């Protein structure tokens, strides 16, 4: 089908949609450079002092560090577990496979608030003190399905004969995994890790319920909204996070596409 030309309705719809979506984000960046405590127009002149103050606010930097640590650790764990689940689901037939996929993917559809309350109840029943570890556990659970779906998509596209060929050439099961399956799945695993990190980094509901004495960044930002004088610093931090997040998503998409070159040479002619 020939692509149709944009009508003027399409064009204006697109413009309004884009403005509605990105104007708030743009305002965020503009106000982070505004030389005033109140976030109101007219602008009061250009400054970078909020960036300096942000770096001097130790609790803020501490919570940022908490979030990065939490994101890396929980995403690593989720990537390993999710990849194992993906290999199991794609390569093996076993009774209850459909049920396994459904259960593993459940966190995608359960509201995080509900999951958070449930986990809070569980931890208090078991007398487990709340900490970054409990938040991390929650983040591993919500990120496993993301990883599983991304890696499984890659494995499904991979020629099954490749693994047979490796075994035929003398590689054991584990050797085949290390030499063939995981190298081919690797770009998908990197993409899954980055998506998982982003999701952990800005997750609020689970962190809010399960956090101990050390807040994550979203929790800290929320707690600071009560103090109007802190607002410019929060806005500045939000701008930084937004730019970093966008860069990471772009990078992960790039990695995923790089990985999506055919997973097996294409044969010519009919097959």
């Amino acid at each position, binding site marked *: 089908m020939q692509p149709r030309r944009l009508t003027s309705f399409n064009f204006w719809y697109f413009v309004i949609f884009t403005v509605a979506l990105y104007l708030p984000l743009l305002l965020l960046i503009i106000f982070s450079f505004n030389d005033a405590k109140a976030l109101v127009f007219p602008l009061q002149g250009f400054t970078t002092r909020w960036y300096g103050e942000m770096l001097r606010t130790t609790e803020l930097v501490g919570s940022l560090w908490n979030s990065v640590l939490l994101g890396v650790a929980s995403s690593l764990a989720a990537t390993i577990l999710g990849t194992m689940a993906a290999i199991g689901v794609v390569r093996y037939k076993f009774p209850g496979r459909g049920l396994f996929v459904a259960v593993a993917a459940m966190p995608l559809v359960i509201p995080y608030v509900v999951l958070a309350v449930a986990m809070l109840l569980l931890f208090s029943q078991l007398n487990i003190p709340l900490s970054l570890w409990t938040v991390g556990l929650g983040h591993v659970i919500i990120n496993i399905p993301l990883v599983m779906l991304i890696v499984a998509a890659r494995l499904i596209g991979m*020629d099954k*004969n*490749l693994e*047979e*060929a*490796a*075994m*035929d*050439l*003398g*590689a*054991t099961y584990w*050797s085949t995994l290390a*030499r*063939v399956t995981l*190298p*081919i799945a690797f770009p998908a695993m990197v993409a899954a890790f980055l998506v998982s990190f982003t999701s952990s980094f800005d997750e609020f509901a689970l962190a809010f319920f399960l956090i101990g004495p050390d807040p994550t960044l979203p929790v800290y930002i929320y707690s600071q909204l009560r103090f109007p004088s802190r607002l410019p610093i929060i806005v500045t931090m939000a701008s930084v996070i937004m730019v970093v997040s966008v860069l990471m998503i772009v990078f992960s998409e790039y990695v995923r596409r790089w990985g999506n*070159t*055919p*997973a*097996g*040479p*294409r*044969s*010519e*002619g*009919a*097959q």
Partner: protein
Amino acid sequence: MTARTTPNGAVPAVELRNVYKTFPAGRSESEVAAVNGVNLTLPSGEFFTLLGPSGCGKTTTLRMIAGFETPTAGEIYIQGQEMSRTPPYRRPVNTVFQNYALFPHLTIEKNVAFGLNVKKVSKAEQQRRVEEALALVQLATVGQRKPTQLSGGQQQRVALARALINRPAVLLLDEPLGALDYKLRQAMQLELKALQLEVGITFVYVTHDQEEALTMSDRIAVMNQGQVLQVGTPIEIYERPTTRFVANFIGETNFLDGRVTRVNGSRCVVQVADGLEVSGSNYQPVAVGDTVTVSIRPEKIRIHESRPEPQPNLFEVAVDRVAYIGSDTQLFMTMPYGAKVRAYDQNELSTVDENYFYAAGDQAWISWRPENALVLKD
């Protein structure tokens, strides 16, 4: 671990004894028998072909020799060792896959070296043997490239080199030329045969292409519905098929159904219609009254423009249709009592005179020698 030997004392490269393989069929209770009691003995150094239509069990048989499938019953001996349950990585066999299955993330060199690398062969030895293997398949210059940068024919050679570098006792090839175009396929057939003679390894070759099988094989096993119907040299398979299926699957033939009325040693007379009798050769024993099929290859039928001397199996026919195909003209004819017969008239004379050729509606006589008409009991 009993070593088995052939009558002359040599250990066969591969031996299958009463091998069965059934697969569960979806949700139903019944099972599908992919391989149904196969017995084969392959001497060392042979180019052996499993030939049959798709779904006949030839690929499943190959995959059981490779170790990708476990037989439901029966034994598989490789060089005298029972290996039906040995994992693929501990069998002295290598496979060339239909779609090549080259590792997309590795260079050609690393692909070819894969088997040696797994077995921790020294780097220097790997290097030497990779060069040797790539030279063997005439691809010495592509070592640093990735598989997707090569043509289908080149990928095929890399797959061969990757398998042969391990010096397997048996090389298994699963329709390796299926994805190549016709000209390249023909060239590769001759090359494969030459390569097999050069390396002296037993080849087990799976194909549904009879021309491929006839061109390359020392011996062919024709399979259908999970069973081996006949094993023999290409000439034996073509000239002495023992069943109607084999006669029909290999080459072209005419079938006349009838009943045996007289038997005299290896010659017999078959009544194919009321008052229409043909004489043929029964290379298997038949008895008077047996229902049989007479198979006559079209190129073995002689066509006469006018009534020739009286001779056995001489019939007057009507030419229904002709097809000029260059080297010969194919005639589609009706015998008395309605039997349809096809024969090839070789175009010995270079001419554009239409009168030289048969045309639809012509009258003609056909005959064949009794030894060319095979009487099959099926």
